[in-house]
């Protein structure tokens, strides 16, 4: 079942779009047909963008504009493509191509290079073993460095598919983004890296590098928050909190944003900076909907945290009769204490004239909207209306409709202040955020014995991203699938942890290992099934496919299994004569004609075990009913070793079509999945 493990091609559609593919695409063709009437530039631009990947866009906007306005840029690429393919067919013939377009200031210099393709490339747009033209594009003055490239590249061993037009333009992208002197470095390092790197890196450096990067990857925080997507929300939140802490105002705010984006990071950052300032004393109370499942627990937790805080600050441990009581039923107790803190407890603090500020951070606020009265939220929000008690309530949630969940009295007390965090909206944004955790911050540079090592590391990362490497496909994958940063971080940990003295930069291919390892869901379940289990799955799927209700029990599935194998066995003789394998020789089929290959039908006694195991695995589960009580009870059984009665109705997690797709390649199984 190796096919489950290979997700390499998942985004091939994005990467592999060559001009040829685009032109053969019916949609584009249709649009090209219309182009005669209205010259649809945006489409053309889209095509270009696909063609050039995003590097052009990343380069200076002026050039992008120029390229976009370039009327013949499209045909030009065509030509190049055609010529390249021409060169392929002609073998070792050199093709010279030189075009200069005065109107756009873009000089197209042509450099002849001998490209040795080392291995089969991942994205074979042009596959060639021969000489291929390498077009280098550069713009304006100050970019004369490229001239040297002729010499450099004469013995440049292009690592992988640099011969594709896509990669040629990648180079342009880098060349245009970087400042000239950096470009020299870049060319240098690229050569350095492609040849055996000459830089001697000490063991200490490697360990330091590994630890630095792994720390960045492992921690949820973002190295440089002011430079990331979280800048705006974190600024807003800081201002709100500081107004509570410094000016003694009451506030409430909702922080809304998708999971795993850094809402908690923003809050911790804001609280941390306030703590660091230490102008005013304040208490933070953190609640979480998944830790304190009910309001009662939440109240108790507030009491506990207040207790702990006050104990810490007052230092006189005589205070035993604080908030906590043996019974949790009185929220009033806490409220009284909070308000009482205005009068009595304030004396315990440095600033005697001001009451203490309390910041409530409530993660997963939506959990506390379940009860009809929403007592906790109501009281907290009500407190913020009280000018005597300066508190700030920060609600954190991933639900964007959280306001609708508030009960009307709660909603009317809500200040309507909402801060949202957003996912990266473009790939560039995503990469610029993601690359930060893979790179060494410039402030760290001097800690290394060889200062050029971190610099080389950073360049290498950037470079890997601009080539068609594992890193690039990882970035694409995580951007287009989830935009989740954590996923990217997790996948990057393996390559970073594998670096050694001898091989002190990351191995790009390692970036794919983590995601290749991650097989989940029905695929993984089916993959781990034994043959008999699969048979039962297929039998059950066949039954549910035919019957109108989607439930099945052991009796029905076993009956189906017996019938299925009977039918298969009667067919088996005829099939072997006709020769299911077209390559089989005549003699083979003659020999096989007399042999009947049948499958044994296993007895019901034995089949009960696979059936039970399917239930334990979760491929079969208790039928869903309309009664919540029954469903909840059934959920308890999930994944447990329980005794399944033969007549127990169960539901199957997979349909016949799915099974067929998952088992494609196994002709026997595939035949069984056809009714």
């Amino acid at each position, binding site marked *: 079942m190796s096919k*489950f493990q290979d997700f390499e091609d998942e985004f091939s559609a994005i990467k592999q779009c060559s001009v040829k593919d685009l032109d053969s695409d019916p949609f584009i063709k249709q649009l090209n047909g219309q182009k005669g009437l209205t010259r649809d530039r945006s489409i053309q631009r889209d095509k270009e963008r696909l063609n050039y990947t995003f590097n052009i866009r990343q380069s200076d906007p002026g050039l992008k504009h120029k390229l976009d306005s370039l009327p013949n840029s499209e045909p030009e690429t065509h030509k190049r493509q055609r010529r390249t393919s021409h060169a392929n067919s002609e073998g070792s013939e050199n093709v010279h191509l030189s075009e200069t377009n005065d109107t756009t200031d873009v000089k197209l210099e042509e450099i002849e290079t001998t490209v040795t393709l080392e291995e089969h490339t991942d994205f074979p747009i042009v596959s060639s073993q021969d000489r291929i033209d390498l077009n280098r594009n550069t713009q304006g003055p100050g970019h004369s460095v490229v001239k040297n490239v002729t010499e450099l590249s004469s013995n440049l061993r292009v690592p992988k598919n640099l011969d594709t037009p896509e990669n040629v333009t990648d180079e342009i992208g880098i060349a245009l983004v970087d400042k000239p002197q950096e470009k020299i470095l870049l060319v240098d390092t690229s050569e350095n890296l492609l040849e055996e790197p000459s830089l001697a890196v000490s063991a200490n450096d490697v360990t330091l590098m590994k*630890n630095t990067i*792994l*720390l960045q990857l*492992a921690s949820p925080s973002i190295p440089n928050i002011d430079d990331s997507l979280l800048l705006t929300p974190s600024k807003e939140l800081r201002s709100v909190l500081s107004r509570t802490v410094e000016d003694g105002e009451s506030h409430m705010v909702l922080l809304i944003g998708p999971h*795993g984006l850094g809402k908690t990071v923003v809050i911790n950052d804001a609280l941390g900076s306030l703590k660091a300032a230490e102008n005013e004393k304040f208490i933070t109370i953190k609640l*979480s909907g*998944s*830790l*304190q499942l009910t309001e009662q*627990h939440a109240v108790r*937790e507030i*009491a506990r945290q207040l207790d702990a805080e006050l104990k810490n600050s007052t230092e006189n441990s005589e205070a035993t009769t*604080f908030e*906590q*009581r*043996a019974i*949790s039923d009185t929220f009033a107790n806490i409220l009284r204490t909070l308000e009482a803190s205005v009068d009595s407890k304030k004396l315990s603090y440095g600033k005697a004239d001001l009451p203490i500020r309390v910041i409530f951070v409530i993660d997963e606020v939506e959990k506390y909207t379940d009860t009809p009265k929403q007592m906790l939220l109501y009281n907290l929000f009500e407190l913020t209306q009280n000018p005597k008690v300066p508190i700030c309530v920060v609600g954190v949630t*991933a639900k964007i409709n959280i306001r609708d969940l508030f009960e009307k009295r709660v909603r009317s007390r809500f200040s309507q202040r909402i801060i949202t965090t957003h996912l990266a909206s473009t790939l560039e944004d995503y990469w610029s955020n993601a690359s930060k955790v893979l790179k060494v911050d410039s402030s760290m540079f001097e800690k290394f014995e060889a200062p050029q090592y971190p610099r080389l590391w950073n360049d290498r990362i950037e470079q890997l991203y601009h080539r068609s490497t594992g890193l690039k496909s990882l970035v694409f994958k995580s951007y287009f699938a989830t935009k989740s940063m*954590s996923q990217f971080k*997790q996948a990057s*940990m*393996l390559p970073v*942890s*594998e670096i050694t003295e001898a091989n002190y930069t990351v191995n790009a291919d390692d970036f794919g290992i*983590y995601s290749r*390892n991650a*097989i*989940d*869901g029905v695929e*993984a379940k089916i*993959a*781990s*099934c*034994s*043959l*008999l*289990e699969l048979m039962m799955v297929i039998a059950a799927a066949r039954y549910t496919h035919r019957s109108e209700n989607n439930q099945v*029990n052991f*009796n*029905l599935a076993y*009956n189906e299994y017996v019938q299925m194998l009977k039918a298969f066995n009667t067919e088996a003789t005829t099939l072997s004569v006709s020769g299911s394998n077209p390559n089989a020789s005549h003699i083979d089929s003659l020999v096989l004609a007399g042999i009947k290959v049948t499958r044994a039908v*296993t*007895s*019901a*006694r*034995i089949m*009960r*075990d696979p059936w*039970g195991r399917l239930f334990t*695995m*979760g491929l079969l589960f208790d039928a869903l009913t309309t009664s919540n009580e029954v469903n909840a009870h059934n959920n308890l059984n*999930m*994944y447990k*070793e329980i*005794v399944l*009665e*033969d*007549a127990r*109705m169960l539901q199957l997690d997979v349909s016949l079509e799915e099974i067929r797709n998952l088992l494609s390649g196994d002709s026997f199984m595939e035949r069984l999945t056809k009714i």
Partner: protein
Amino acid sequence: MVKPNPVRFRETEYSLLSSFIANDSHILVPHVIVQGYKSVGKTFVVKSFLDDIGINKTIVNCDEFLTQKLLLQKCLHRIKQDSGIDLDKYQQRFMYKGLEASRESVLCETFSQFLMTLEQFIDETNYREPHVLVLDRFDQCLDQTNELFRAFLKLREYSSITNIIVIYITSHEDPKEIAPFVIPHVHFPPYTQESLVEILADSRPKEVTEGLIDVSAWQSFSKLVVDSLFHYTGTDLSLIKDICSKSWPKFSAQCIESGQGNTGFLKALRSLRDEIFQDDIITNSSVVTFGGLVDEKGSNSSLGDLPYHSKFILIASYLASYTDVKLDIQLFSRVKTAKKRPRKKTNSSRADAHFMSAAYFDLERLKAILSVIYRNESLSLSRNNEEFLNLYHDLSEKDLAKKEAEFTYFTPNKSVDVNTQIATLLSLGMIDRTYSLDALSSRIRWKCNVSWDIISSLAEDIRFPLHNYMIDN
């Protein structure tokens, strides 16, 4: 990086683990989920990995705990023990609901209490060494752990603890509660058949290590077992090991008897093939389900000794369970027209109905059906009626009519014995009922608990025309 002890066929998973966890408190991923269906070496790899890097560790088998509270208490207790901190010197004072608790048993009612206590312990002892908590079989706890899972994932977020890593070993999908969290996963794909053979060949039994039997004999034996049972076991290592250990003693004894070498092996194989490689070895190796109460067709001799009336009661209960109430008048009423119905020959669709689970019925319905079928079909009442009446030649017409009426209205229900027999059948598990605290509740409903196979053989036994009372759809 040199892997000290590469675990065979699990190199990728091992290196993934090592990328997430290192014996260095700075770079710790807070959570790792190790996932893989069935027994594919998850716990083994995790254990040997943790041994290799020499990190402090606590392994808790979650499925051993009845409640969440006990589990959390155990975790806490074990972490404290495994931390290497001298517990004699450090005495933790527990706060419970604002009061100092004297007993540990009140702790960990909720996860936040657990967290609080753990945090307190770590703070007060200044325990900073990395420590791995392995929650083995976390998804198989007796309590539902989905919420707990979510809470565990917040461990770092809501405490000052930085040195605890939690490894969750699960053999199922992630529950949906934790789906929004992106947690590092290490998936364990199934073994291939070849690697299964190799692993099995390496785990040598005592006879081989002692030199009584050739290594090659064990190797071929294990290969033989895998080959013959792979379709059943799949890549479930523990299942196949179990089966191996079941059949090995017999085989090894034979092997020793017939001598060393290939010939000995073949000899042993030939003499034991029928005994070892058959279905029994499978069915005996795993839990015998209670479905085996009455095993298979033909083997229901245990029911043969039921009293005659019990058989009727059982059949009546089956009919009550598997026929529709709406059809009762048609099937069981005294209207003669309804009784003689042609038998339908649609076997397959009728089979469908019998495969379904039994419906519940009221006890009154069972008794009503019982009296009908008993009157109609029992030997003493229906068959021998004529002969019986012949005995009373000299009776008057009136008496005859009276007798006749007696027969027609006869029901066994009036006998105390019927209730006893129903109770007996219930205790034998052949009839089932809903349970209610109120023993006399009228809401108690009953159902038949035996399958079609058994009922049809019972009916054959007492020559009961079962088809007359069932309508095939």
